[in-house]
């Protein structure tokens, strides 16, 4: 029942996924099993957990303890923050953003989903879809997670019933259709017994889809990247103080989207100056093409004035340049709500600005999707559509088209805490 023991090779690719589920749906058990079956759990970790389980009088080795990091949480028996876990198979390296299902839920889930290629939502087959399951699905679609997997867990407790599985799957599929989820897969599993986790289960011959791990290993993610719109936020200008490479000037950054090649005509935003790419360099030498998520250094044929926060793109395919931004904002601060007239710092790509809240168009009830148009603020874990005016123009795309140039964070200028996450709907 274990995954092939051969060493993960160097040619694997990387899949980041977030997990979500209500308390006791079996999320920790599932993660524990994936880590265990892929040999990402070590004997000393298992021993520590066994010892803790024994001392607490648990009847079984509580695999949940494996993924329960901090003392405060252990003492209260709850997980309160996103934790990252790692495992690999010969095909892929996986990074799990494990988002806990308690009070801070929305904040944690939004954080975990922001970098995820895939989200895994768990439901208990006995309970079916809960309000929370819908909320999880909604947050995944809000964050534009390209692939969604619904795991109907604890199938062993419903006699591996096809009927129960299908009714949950149908209900969820109908709901997801309204959310415009690009890719949905539903898998019946038992995290505890291991059914349909690594291999297809003999207990559910009626299920014809892949095991969960097979799906995670094979889901096609390469084309999730936007390879069309060239966006290169300039991060840092490399100008060596050295006579060996005198006059060197390179624009360092990570490709947000699109494909760049030497010889391409490019435009620097917001100045609008154009030039051509003379070379794309890395410490290992020049390269013929750069695409996401590569970190490279771009050199241009002409000396034009470009600084951190500027963006290199193509003359005929540019982001909006705007100080007026409409965005869905998720508020993450417990001490003070976001309110109209509030001023904040924001960070968008490599650009920093200040912003004032011009208006809150509506607050969204994430359970019913009802819009409250009379809201005058957003409290912790609330989501709403907000109008912002920024001190300097942002070089912005719609979040649904570009997760990198469409997302921003909001920072409280007094406490310096990250208090909100924004997804641009429109930059006018």
């Amino acid at each position, binding site marked *: 029942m274990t995954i092939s023991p051969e060493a993960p090779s160097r040619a694997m690719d990387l899949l980041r996924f977030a997990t979500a589920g209500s308390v006791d749906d079996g999320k920790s058990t599932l993660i524990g099993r994936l880590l265990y079956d892929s040999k990402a759990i070590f004997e000393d970790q298992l021993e520590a957990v066994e010892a803790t389980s024994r001392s607490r009088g648990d009847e079984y080795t509580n695999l949940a303890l494996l993924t329960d990091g901090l003392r405060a949480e252990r003492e209260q028996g709850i997980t309160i923050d996103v934790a990252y876990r790692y495992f690999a198979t010969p095909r892929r390296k996986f990074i799990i953003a494990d988002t806990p299902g308690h009070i801070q839920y929305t904040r944690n889930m939004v954080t975990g989903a922001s970098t995820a290629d895939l989200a895994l939502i768990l439901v208990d087959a006995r309970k079916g879809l809960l309000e929370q399951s819908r909320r999880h699905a909604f947050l995944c679609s809000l964050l534009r997670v390209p692939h969604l997997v619904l795991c109907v867990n604890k199938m062993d407790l419903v006699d591996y019933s096809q009927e129960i599985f299908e009714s949950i799957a149908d209900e969820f599929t109908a709901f997801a259709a309204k959310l415009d989820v690009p890719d949905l897969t539903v898998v019946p599993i038992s995290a505890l017994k291991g059914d349909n986790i690594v291999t297809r289960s003999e207990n559910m011959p009626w299920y014809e889809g892949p095991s969960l791990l097979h799906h995670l290993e094979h889901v096609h993610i390469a084309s999730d990247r936007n390879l069309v719109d060239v966006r290169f936020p300039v991060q840092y200008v490399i100008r*060596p103080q050295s006579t060996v490479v005198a006059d060197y000037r390179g624009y360092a950054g990570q490709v947000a989207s699109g494909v760049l090649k030497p010889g391409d005509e490019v435009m620097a935003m917001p100045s609008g100056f154009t030039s051509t790419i003379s070379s794309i360099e890395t410490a290992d030498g020049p390269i013929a093409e750069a695409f996401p998520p590569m970190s490279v250094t771009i050199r241009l044929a002409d000396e034009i004035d470009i600084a951190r926060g500027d963006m290199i793109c193509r003359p005929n395919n540019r982001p909006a340049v705007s100080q007026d931004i409409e965005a869905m904002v998720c508020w993450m601060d417990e001490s003070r709500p976001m309110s109209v007239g509030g001023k904040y710092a924001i960070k968008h790509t490599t650009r920093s600005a200040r912003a004032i809240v011009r208006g809150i168009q509506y607050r969204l009830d994430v359970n019913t999707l009802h819009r409250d148009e009379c809201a005058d603020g957003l409290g912790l874990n609330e989501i709403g559509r907000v109008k912002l005016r920024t001190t300097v123009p942002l070089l912005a795309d719609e979040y649904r088209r570009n997760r990198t140039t469409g*997302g921003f964070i909001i920072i409280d200028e007094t406490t310096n805490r990250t208090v909100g996450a924004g997804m641009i709907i429109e930059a006018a």
Partner: protein
Amino acid sequence: MKGVNAMTAAYRVSHLDALEAESIFVMREVVAEFERPVLLFSGGKDSIVMLRLAEKAFAPARIPFPVMHVDTGHNFSEVLAFRDARVEELGVQLIVASVPEAITSGLVRESADGMRNRIQTPVLLDAVEKYRFDALFGGARRDEEKARAKERVFSFRDEFGQWDPRNQRPELWSLYNARVHPGESIRVFPLSNWTELDIWHYIARERIGLPEIYFAHDREVVDRDGMLYAINEFLPLRAGEEPFVAKVRYRTVGDASCTAAVKSDADTIEKVIDEVAATRITERGATRGDDKVSEAAMEDRKREGYF
């Protein structure tokens, strides 16, 4: 369909390339946003990889920040020699924050068991204050230890260098919040998403040199509480202990008085990778006497400002 696959295949990025790109992005972000970054260099494989990534992030310019070694005085000579050669080669400034000097000056007191891991923290914080560093690169990985799994890439520390696990900044996309008040700082972990195996694959791919103690060699050791310790001036023999020669290598390199070796025949990088892939015990569990004390040992040290 064939066309689409052919195209995306051409834009394939391996996991090591993705990890490298992310780490380089993080390092550039720090240099762009902070006044005085510094890279904590222990001579261990993770900090060696981190230094390599720094070299790549700013090429062809030199690494635009100094390197700091918090020196417990209990060193493996191979590691010190390696450190000095590497610093020389890169042309970076080396700052040594010395624990023995801090003991002499009375900043810290030697603990009864002679272990210097815990007293490293005040020495580190003292140097941070003295040089007014506002960002410290550390080589910690989230897969190392449970308390690290929730650590941010940019981890905020208050003016006492303390970490508050309940009060961490949410970290979304690749948008890192670099704002601090004077006296506060950020610990930055560019290797957060790397695993031990990723580190070894990268060392092999990049042909990164390492101190020889990472590879199997014959060494005089004693068996103490099930761990193999090298006998040296910092780790005297205890009554009744019988030293013996064994073929060993180190999986982590820390203070020579509390870092243990593991039995191994892996004398090449390929063999090390095979061994790491097959290993069933975490590297800290296998080699760090200081983490054995309690399950919460690491978390306590981190709160106090340990790296």
